Structures are given as structure tokens and as C-alpha cells.
């Protein structure tokens, strides 16, 4: 009978193990050290795709017609895909503003019209060094953008170090982006 009794305990034990895993995963999500939005990217460790885009005209800024990624070589760079039509992009605006003091940010307006992008920047602030217009989203495909907002961290040589899908928050900056940036030695 004791063997029978033991087999009746098995489901409970199996469940306990599963629940423990779930609890750990949830706990680390709560702490911010794990983020389900952080999807694996094939780009990590590889040079960022060549990117030349029409430049969004802004006052007191560069008057060139286009902007390329290579302009930013020699310093770590954040590449941020955003759009005026995307609600989470509004959410991440303050966080981007904050981190723009530490690192240059190249904004790529994804499937957006210049008027709308300009209005968005006026409303929510402009943390970007330059903004490229990816009007048909083809550039996004090359980068493998999952959805806006999405952010990539590039090192001095333009190699992708990190990818974050979803809005940037204070927790993401402190726990993910800043440590990676410190590893790059800036």
C-alpha cells in the first residue's frame, strides 16, 4: 500500500516543482532583472545593418537631406525605433530624455509621416541627435524590428550589443542599458 500512497503524492510534487519555477520567474520579472519583452535578436554581436534614411528637418540642426548610421561611429549609440502613432512610445519618452544625457540617441521614425513625427517631438520632447524617416518600414525589416518602440545599443564600431523590445523604463535603464554601457567603457 505504501507504494500506492507514494504514487498519489507524485502529482503534488510535480506541481510544487512547476510552481517554484513560476514563482522564481515571476519574482525576477518583478525585480526587473528579467523581461519577457527582451527577445533574442540575431543581430546581437553583429554589425548593425547599413542605414541611410531621409533626415527629419528640425530647427537649428543639420541641413543635410539624409542621415546615415556611420555618422555616429566612434561613440556608443542607442538606436530607437519609434512612431507618433504608438502609445508605448509616449510612455518611454521621459526615460529616453533621461538617458540622452549619457549617450547619443539616433531615432528612427517607423512608418510615420514627418508632420506627425514633428508634432510628436514637440509634444513629448526630443531626446534624439538625429531622426531618420523609415516611411515604408523597410529599414525596420532589415533590423528585424518586432514592433515599436524598440531599442538597440551599438558599440563604438557600430556592432549591436543589446536589443530591447517594448518601452524603455527606469528599471530597464538601471538594470539593462547602463550596465551594458559601462561594459563598453564609457
Amino acid at each position, binding site marked *: *500500500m505504501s507504494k500506492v500512497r507514494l504514487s498519489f503524492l507524485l502529482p503534488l510534487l510535480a*506541481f510544487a516543482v512547476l*510552481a517554484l519555477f513560476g514563482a522564481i*520567474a515571476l519574482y525576477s520579472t*518583478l525585480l526587473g532583472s*528579467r523581461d519577457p519583452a*527582451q*527577445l533574442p535578436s540575431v543581430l546581437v554581436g553583429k554589425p548593425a545593418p547599413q542605414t541611410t534614411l531621409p533626415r527629419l528637418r528640425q530647427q537649428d540642426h543639420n541641413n543635410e537631406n539624409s542621415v546615415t548610421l556611420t555618422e555616429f561611429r566612434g561613440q556608443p549609440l542607442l538606436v530607437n525605433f519609434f512612431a507618433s*502613432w504608438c502609445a508605448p512610445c509616449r510612455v518611454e519618452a521621459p526615460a529616453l530624455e533621461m538617458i540622452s544625457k549619457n549617450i547619443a540617441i539616433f531615432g528612427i521614425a517607423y512608418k510615420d509621416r514627418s508632420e506627425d513625427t514633428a508634432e510628436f517631438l514637440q509634444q513629448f520632447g526630443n531626446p534624439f541627435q538625429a531622426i531618420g524617416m523609415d516611411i515604408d518600414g523597410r529599414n525596420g525589416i532589415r533590423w528585424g524590428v518586432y514592433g515599436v518602440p524598440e531599442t538597440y545599443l551599438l558599440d563604438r564600431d557600430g556592432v549591436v550589443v543589446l536589443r530591447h523590445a517594448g518601452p524603455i523604463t527606469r528599471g530597464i535603464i538601471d538594470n539593462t542599458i547602463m550596465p551594458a554601457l559601462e561594459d563598453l567603457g564609457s
Partner: protein
Amino acid sequence: MIAEFGHFALITAFILSLAQSVVPLFGAARRNIAMMLVAPAAAISVTLAVILSFSALVWGFITSDFSLALVANHSHSTKPMIYKISGTWGNHEGSLLLWILILVIYGGLMALGGRTMPIALKARILAIQGMVSASFLAFSLFTSNPFQRLSTIPLDGKGLNPILQDPGLAIHPPMLYLGYVGLSMAFAFAVAALITGEVDRMWAKWMRPWVIAAWCALTCGIALGSWWAYYELGWGGWWFWDPVENASLMPWLAATALLHSAIVVEKRGQLKSWTVLLAIMAFSLSLVGTFIVRSGLLTSVHSFASDPARGVFVLMILLFAVGIPLALYAWRGPKLFTTADFTLTSREGALIANNMLLIVATAIVLLGTFYPLGLELVTGARITVGPPYFDATFNPVMAILMMIMAIGPVMAWRRGRTTRLQPVMICALAGGAIACIALLSFEARFGIGPLAALGLIGWLSAGIGADIWLQLRPTKSANFSARLKRLPRDVIGMWVAHFGIVIFMLGAVGDSLFNSEQVVRANPGDVIRIADRNITFTGIQQVQGPNYQAVAAQLEYRDEAGNLFAVLRPEKRIYSAERQTTTEAAIRPTLRGDDYAVLGDGDAQIGYTLRLYYKPLISWIWGGAALMAVGGLVAVFGRQRTVRRQNAAITGVAVSDTHMAAPPLSRGGKG
């Protein structure tokens, strides 16, 4: 005001459900009838209160009351009325309330029905049901209040995700929840049985209709979800092994196993503890299915915005709802243990094999869904598990299951064989062989996979056909209709449901083997050829919808002789409120196959991208699922009839011949 009223009704429901979960349990333990009778009264009151509360929320959506945070975030004044209403459950808070509504309606039905059940059993079942409702009412009230007001009232709402504005999606969640939540009845039966430590055949007989009903709804819900993905996402596929889809498939697999093991309990009084465990598992999996994607544990394209704080609450509920019953099972389960009194080659043996295979399949899906999570916790690596894994593991298990499906129903209970076993096996073998030969003569290039699939379809359909013929063919003593009348409706339901699987398989195999696909960049006037049809792209039109603007391509389909037989207009829609673009595939569904067209990017200079498919037999997938559900319904309602007839028959003559070869039911039970 109405919203506050709804909120108040929800609070009332919570307090009443606490009473429902505590008082009857005490009453049942002390044999106090008055306390036990609290259960049905409380269950009906809770149902009424939640109906009021849900109606208040729907009213808020109908009248576009943007002072409600939920309405402001998920609705828009320009939205068509049906989507305003369906917007009620197109978000976390509202869908949770719908979930609760269905849960308490099941409880209310149980309270109203079940007149032949012993009062103590009914009181315990309703008490367990009350505990589940109380947990989720608390979840709703404390973490996801749908009646939250805004201090500043916006002029218009933020709209609903346009991809969710779709008739299929309006009815998909209610259907799916009907299935998920229906399994809570089986769960309540199981826990009540563990409390008393008693399971008899009547217990299974009372439980089985609930399981079948839930299973039917779940089947329809999953099929609707897959149909929605097929025509709305515009990828031409119908199943993606996405975590959300897997989460609905797992309870379905467990419920299917439960459905079959409960037969053994009802007819033979065996497999009691296993059936109890299955009932607990099925409901646990449906809890996981509804809530895991909202807890922030898994990533999915379908998921609502996840919130880890809610995840903690969900995990707590899961811990109690699964942990306590399993602890109870470890303690009381051995009392339900029976030693097997049958051989492997019996009906019971076949049903056990069915259960084992379904549980293995569930484990495969569970592993594929949660392994990435586990791996990430251990090594930090992030991977995704895709169709190749499931094709290689899930499909072979299902293939073995289909083999047993043809011969299991013609095996005899306990041991030995029926006279039907041999002819059915011969027919099934012949059917399988003919299907394989037909496929090979048609096209020799197919590998072992398609060949096996076709062979199985032949095997199963011939097996079912032979069984039907042997049981219904006119004999000296009875003609066709007389024999049909004498047959229990369960058997007819089983045939229909099993045949639904044949139809489903035909659809799935047809689509994967003979699917043709073309992606072209075309200018107006171009002709594209696909699967014996010439498609002329005649041009682009602007379309103005109620809350969107669209460009539509016009495609004229002509057959070999040049006759126009269809015009398809795939669209690309731009929803102004959300500034979101969706592609609307144009589909011409026929029994032989679907023409499926999607309009991609492009303009007048460079041409337009068109994705054109011809998908043979694909609509049979959903037809098969519908047949399975119909089979379930026939079994449920047929059972009611059979029971009534049995009660009416004073003589007590056995209703059927070989199918009721099991010893007759012991009437009365305890009560």
C-alpha cells in the same frame, strides 16, 4: 451611477460567494440540511449579482461612457455597435468579468438542476464552485476593477486594437471561456469526491454531461480562434503553436482524456482516482490557459498588456486551486484505488491507452510551451520552440491515438472480444491500404509522413464506417430505423465526433500537401497563374469604412476555359483613431478549397505586392471541429433522453445490446 451599481453588485457577489463556499461545507460535514440548502440559494444569488454587474459594464460600453477608465482605454465613439459590445471583453478587466460571469452561470445551472443528486454532494460541489468564484471575484475587485472612474473625462476613447475588431473575435473569447470554465464543474466534482473519499458510478454519470458540454465549447472556441488567425492575420496558416494557442490546446487534450476515462468510471467503476486527478488537471490547465499569458511569464502576440503585480495574484490563486486539491489527492486518493479487473485488450485497455497518449501529448505541449522559460531561468538563454518540435513529437502520438480510435469502440469490456472486432479491423486495414495506394498512384513524391497521415484517415474512416454498418444494418429481427432507435445516443455522438476527426485530418493534410502559394509584385493588368486558375489584377480602389480607410485590390479569377468565377478584393485598412494598418485577406471558401489573397505594400510606380494562395480542403479543418462538437452535443442531449426513458421504463429492459454489455448501473447511489 450605473457603473457604481455594477461595482456594488460585484462586491455583493463576492461576499455571497464567500458564504456559498463556507456554510454548505460545514452543513455537509454536520448533516445539517438547512446549512446545505444555503448552497443553491447563494449560488443563484451570486449568479444574479454578477449578471447585473456585467450588464452595467456592457451598458458603459454601449453608451460610450468615457468617464470609465476601461471604456476610455478600449472603446471609441465611431466604433460599430457590435464591436462596442464585444469591446467589453476585449481587455483584461472586462474579460475577467466575463470569465467570472460564465463561472457563476455554471454554478447557477448546477444549483437549479441536479435534482436527483444527493444533497450533501451537491452542497459540496457548489461550495467548491463558490471558492473558485470568490477567488476570482477578489482578483477582479482588488487588482483589476473594471469600474474604475477617471477624474478627467476624455473627449473620445483610445479605441480598440483594430485587429480585434472582427466578428470572429467577438464570439471567440466567450466560447473559449465557456469551455475553460465548464471544466471547473468537473474540478468541483473531483474535489467534492476527495473530501468524502467516495466515487461511485453515479458520480461519473452526473459529472460527464458537464465535461462533455465544456469540451464542446472548448472545441468550438479553439476552432474559432484558429479560423480567426487564418483569415485575419493574413499569413494563410491556421495553427502557429503560439503560447496562447498551446494554452488552450492543453486543457482540451486533458478534457478529452477526462471525457473518456469518465466512461470507464460510469460503466465499470474503475479508474476512479485517475479520473479525479484528470479533472483537477484539466481545470488547472485551463486556469493556466486563461491567466498565464496575463502574468508576464510568457511572451505572445495575442496577449493583453501583462502586469507582474497581477501575476502574483494569479500565481497565488493557482497555488491554492491546484496545490490544495493535489494535497487532498495525495491524502485521500489511495481510498479510491481499485485493482484492475480487465485485460489489456479490452475496452478499458483501449481507453487507458487513449488517456496515456493524450497525457503524453499534453506533456509535449506543456514542455514546448514552458521549456524556454525554464531554460532561461537556468542558463539565461532565450529560445523559442516552433512547429518543427511539435511536428516531430505531437503528430506521432496523435497518429497512434487515431489507430486505437478505430478499434477501441468495438472492443468488449473487461476481456475477450466482440463479434464486430474482426470485421472492423479488416475493413480499417483495407481502408488504410486503399488510401495509401490512391495517394501513391496520384503522386509518388510524398514521403512517409503524408503517406501515414492518409493511411490513418483511410483506416479510421473505414473502421468507423464498418462499425456503423454492423450495428445498423437491417437484421431479421429489426430493420435499420428500429436498430437506430435502440442505439444509445452516446454511441451516435461518438461516431459523429470520431468522424469529425477524419474530416479535420483531411483538411489539415489537404492543406499541407497541396497548398499552392505565389508572391508577386504586380501592376494592374497583370495575370498570375496559380493552381489551374488565371488571376487578373485589374486595379486598386479606395474604400471608406465606418472607422477606417482602405485600399482594395481587385482580382478576377478565371478558370482554364476563361470563365470568370470569382472576384476577390483583399484590403489594406488604415484605422484613423489608432493609426494602425491591418491587412484584410480576401477568401473565397469552397468545399474543394479556398482561394486566399492578401494585398501587401506598393504603389502605382513600383507595383503592388500580392500574396495568392490556393488551399485545398482547408475549410474541412473547421468543419471537422464543428462535427466533433456536434457529436458531443448529441451525446449530452441523448443522455438526458436515455435517462428519462430508463426512468420511465418500469420493466427495466436493457436499452441496447452489445454497447451496454457492461453490468447495469446500480441505481440510487448514496442518497
